[in-house]
């Protein structure tokens, strides 16, 4: 039982065959490190006995190699640092033996070689890949908060130079076999996978050399006189970019993600020392990131939570998968037009209906514009664009919805209007077709009252702009059936979006938590300088500050939501707890400062320059308070996390993953946290509760944690 088989063929060529038993893919785990070391030892022995002319590294799986064992890396805590370091060290020692064996080493890449897989491929002197656009290679570690710890940083820098390697290491950019040839990382392509090994054998036979030659039987960096392409940090052209590069990286990470910083540090520090020293520097930073908390947060959410969602975690499994060929979209405004576009590019026919044909055509123009842009950029052919546009049928006739399997209404947020279009549509739709309402706040159970088939009625909350925002919040009303939910889930995945499933409530999940962010930001005006609030949001990793986003959303809308909530609560015999933001919002509205659309909000919007925080914004801090920057940051982070915990307690959220993914993809909760619920986990539940109590006593009841959090603490649970 071994994950690396060592074989010799009749051509005197040794094969390192990557073939993990009982598994569909190869993984770098502890067993692999040992097996690889054993195989390499055999290779070294055979070479010592002068019975090897070359080495081929190949895989028996559909992918070349899937990369690191994420389960293992995720579990590795601070106490496991030594194990992580030794895994990285052992792997690299074996790789080093292979690349310095003095014989031609060829990697045969027939399937994806990502992460650890690409690192293994990098130990070869010559890389042959199957010519396929689907074959992806690269080092995506950074996207999980990690760095390539199997020699990836060290070798990529030595192959491409510091500047050349940056996109592949700091951003984790992947490339196809053809692109690999252009960059110089892939040396030959074959069209037919079956000829791959034969070509490798031929290449080895015709490249026998006693002397060490770079790219034949040695790595360039093992040949005397080797220089890193583009220079080392002491060369002017690199030295000149070093002072600003960390700041540029920070501009995109807001200083909240350590991986890009440490990858760049590994690149630069490694370029100043010999290969083995560089490899050790890389292992040390790899270990730091692996056992660090941020990579755990990211892996938790962007790997486990997201994979669970993609695998249908919240989809009823008693319903068969549905496919869609024709859907209807009601309302050809910004939302409807966006939904029509994303459906058409996925090959679904769309009836885009509005009150008249002119409006519907305007909605289709949205797709025309995007596609024209893509054609101009060379990313789309006229032919394909025509085919996509042909799928969108603008219409003013309800009857055109008759054959639609699924209808999404995206008309104005008015209960009456939504009721009307529901009834009109259901009159012509088939009895099994699903009707979805795209609303961000109106409770679905209430909207479903207009439906004669409430079991087929569901909420489908898209985010704007639809073609860019990945999230869809699916809302189940009281009577929504499993069938409707499953279909909605399937359609969302078909559209290339990420679904979360929540139960009906005022504001559902995302709008409800988003409102706490916005209102907290406004309330903070009583305690801090407006710029401090916006900057606190920025350095915490929020994409937009709460005041800027309030101006975008419009204060009138906020007030409307507050009024509606008040009215709804009154019907239930409850009174709304006053929020410190409310009187500020009222005052702003009385001053006509409704936000960006009215030309003035918390910001001024001069016609000739960038928006600027308005003087009015600083006038609410009447006591001249100046709370600590940490308090500002944590009030924003905590208020959203606590509201999410309340949503969990109230059953609005069905799974932790939905809470985390919804917060990050839908409402801009910072990536590094791994989401609102993971933020609580990583803060430490006891510490979180203690800090929340402190915030409660300082700033108000909205920071008091729901009882269920204390129960979780008592029973030793986490999200």
């Amino acid at each position, binding site marked *: 039982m071994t994950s690396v088989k060592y074989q010799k063929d009749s051509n005197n060529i040794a094969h390192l065959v990557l073939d993990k038993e009982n598994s569909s893919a190869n993984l770098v785990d502890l067993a692999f490190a040992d097996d690889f070391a054993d195989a390499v030892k055999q290779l070294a022995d055979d070479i010592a006995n002068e019975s090897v002319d070359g080495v081929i590294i190949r895989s028996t799986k559909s992918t070349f190699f899937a990369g690191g064992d994420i389960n293992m890396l995720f579990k590795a805590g601070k106490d496991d640092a030594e194990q992580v370091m030794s895994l990285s060290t052992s792997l690299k020692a074996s790789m080093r033996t292979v690349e310095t064996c003095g014989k031609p080493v060829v990697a045969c890449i027939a399937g994806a070689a990502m992460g650890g897989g690409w690192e293994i491929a990098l130990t070869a002197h010559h890389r042959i890949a199957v010519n396929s656009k689907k074959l992806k290679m690269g080092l995506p570690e950074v996207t999980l908060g990690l760095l390539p710890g199997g020699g990836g940083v060290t070798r990529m820098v030595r192959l491409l130079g510091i500047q050349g390697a940056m996109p592949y290491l700091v951003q984790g950019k992947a490339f196809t076999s053809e692109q690999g040839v252009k960059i110089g990382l892939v040396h030959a392509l074959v069209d037919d996978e079956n000829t791959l090994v034969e070509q490798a054998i031929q290449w080895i036979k015709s490249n026998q050399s006693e002397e060490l030659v770079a790219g034949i039987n040695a790595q360039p960096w093992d040949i005397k006189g080797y220089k890193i392409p583009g220079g080392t940090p002491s060369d002017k052209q690199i*030295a000149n970019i070093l002072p600003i590069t*960390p700041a540029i990286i*920070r501009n995109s990470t807001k200083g909240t993600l350590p991986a890009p910083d440490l990858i760049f*540090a590994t690149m630069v520090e490694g370029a100043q020392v010999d290969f083995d020293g560089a490899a050790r520097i890389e292992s040390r930073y790899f270990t730091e990131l692996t056992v660090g908390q941020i990579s755990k947060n990211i892996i938790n959410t962007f790997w486990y939570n997201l994979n669970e969602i993609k695998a249908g975690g919240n989809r009823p499994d008693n319903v068969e998968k549905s496919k869609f060929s024709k859907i209807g979209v009601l309302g050809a405004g910004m939302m409807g037009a966006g939904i029509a576009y994303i459906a058409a590019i996925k090959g679904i026919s769309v009836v885009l209906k509005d009150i008249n044909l002119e409006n519907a055509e305007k909605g289709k123009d949205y797709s025309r514009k995007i596609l024209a842009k893509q054609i101009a950029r060379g990313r789309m052919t006229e032919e394909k664009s025509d085919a996509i546009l042909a799928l969108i049928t603008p219409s003013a006739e309800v009857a055109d919805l008759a054959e639609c399997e699924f209808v999404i209404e995206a008309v104005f947020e008015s209960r009456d209007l939504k009721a009307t279009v529901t009834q009109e549509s259901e009159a012509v739709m088939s009895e099994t077709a699903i009707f979805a309402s795209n609303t961000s706040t109106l409770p679905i159970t209430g909207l479903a009252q207009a439906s004669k088939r409430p079991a087929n009625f569901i909420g489908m909350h898209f985010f704007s702009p639809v073609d860019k925002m990945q999230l869809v919040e699916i809302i189940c009303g009281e009577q929504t059936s499993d069938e409707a939910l499953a279909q909605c889930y399937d359609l969302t995945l078909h559209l290339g979006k990420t679904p979360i499933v929540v139960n009906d409530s005022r504001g559902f999940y995302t709008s409800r938590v988003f409102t706490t962010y916005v209102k907290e930001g406004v309330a903070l005006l009583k305690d801090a300088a407006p710029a401090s609030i916006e900057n606190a949001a*920025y350095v915490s990793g929020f994409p937009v500050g709460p005041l800027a986003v309030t101006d975008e959303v419009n204060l009138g809308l906020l007030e409307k939501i507050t009024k509606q909530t008040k009215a709804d609560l009154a019907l239930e015999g409850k009174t709304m707890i006053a929020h410190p933001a409310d009187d500020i919002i009222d005052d702003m509205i009385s001053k006509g400062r409704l936000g960006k659309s009215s030309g003035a909000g918390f910001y001024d919007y001069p016609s000739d320059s960038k928006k600027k925080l308005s003087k009015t914004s600083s006038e609410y801090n009447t006591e001249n308070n100046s709370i600590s920057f940490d308090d500002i940051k944590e009030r924003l982070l905590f208020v959203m996390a606590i509201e999410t915990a309340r949503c969990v307690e109230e059953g609005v959220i069905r799974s932790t993953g939905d809470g985390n993914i919804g917060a990050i993809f839908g409402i801009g909760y910072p990536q590094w946290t791994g989401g609102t619920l993971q933020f609580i986990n990583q803060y430490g539940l006891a510490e979180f509760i203690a800090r929340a109590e402190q915030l409660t006593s300082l700033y108000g009841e909205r920071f008091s944690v729901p009882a269920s959090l204390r129960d979780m603490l008592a029973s030793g649970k986490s999200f």
Partner: protein
Amino acid sequence: MTNAYIFDAIRTPRGRGKATGALHEVKPITLLSNLLKTLEQRNSLDTQYVDDIVMGCVTPIGDQGANIAKTAAIAAGWSDNLGGVTINRFCASGLEAVNVAAMKVRSGWEHLVVAGGIESMSRETMGSDGGAWANDPHTNVNTSFMPQGIGADLIATLDGYSREDVDTFAMRSHQKAAAAWQRGAFANSVIPVVDQNGFEILSTDQLIRPESTVESLSKLKPSFKKMGEMGFDNVAKEKYHQVEAINHIHTPANSSGMVDGAAAILIGSAQAAKQHGLKPRAKVIATAIVGEDPTIMLTGPAPAAVKALKLAGLTTDDIDLYEVNEAFASVVMRFQGDLNIPDEKVNVNGGSIAMGHPLGATGAIILGTLLDELEARNLKRGLATLCIGGGMGIATIIELVSESVSELN
């Protein structure tokens, strides 16, 4: 306590720090060793009695590498019997050299020390010596590194200085410098640079543009806007979160000019004065070094001055003239604002904005200017100060000596 007296202070004129500058063709070693020769001649110095030469140099590599202080002494034909050391306190290196020399003398362990500095910015580009703070990514990101210019713009933003304010400041620096040259304020101290045949290469400061107006200066583009937008503004805002946007108002015209130049100051004890017939012009009565936030970087002068004043038992009112290095206009404006110092006491003969800032030498140059002007105006005390990389600040207070040599201790 032995006092540290200043006997002489000389400098080269400052040449534009580019290939087109007059001193670009002159080697740094030539600039410095010729200055030492002049110092020797002017003071009839028997160099075997000099204990040490302390020279500031901020980019001590290449032409300026390998301890240019000692090399210049050897090249100038000075006695083998003395030391030479090159120090780097960034922009304050020249004044640090003076302070170190004063401390050496006040300790009683040395009696005659030459202090000064050298920087040929046209030859060894600022920043070309690298260093971990800017060039090591891990250090850079963890310590919120940003270039000084962003700090200068940040000070202006925090204090509310407008573009017009700093351009007016710059214009006045040029006007004051031009006037000073015209009335011969620098005549005693500036030693023309000549070649081996005695042909003059440069005799005046090359950068002064008395014709500058606020209107003409307003046309220049901000120097640090682009790099700020690329990322450094956000580094600044992480620490100075009350700032919504950095107001980038510093341009090449209201920042110090890059130039080539050198300075040398002869410092010694009363015993040395008596022994070698040297006439003390002033004494160093206090020195100070402080550190402030390294990110904003340039706020050190006021706290350094306060520290030095406290040591000397003085207040700002006891100081007749100030030389505050014009690294950037906002640095001097912040200093004046912090300590409430009136314009008529500060940089009365212009500063680095008009005449240039040869990094390693400037501290010694402005101390010499201060000394000359105190004498010219028959005043008593002056304070020189500079902002420094890493958030440091330095200050030196001097007092003119009226006593005769025999009365000194």
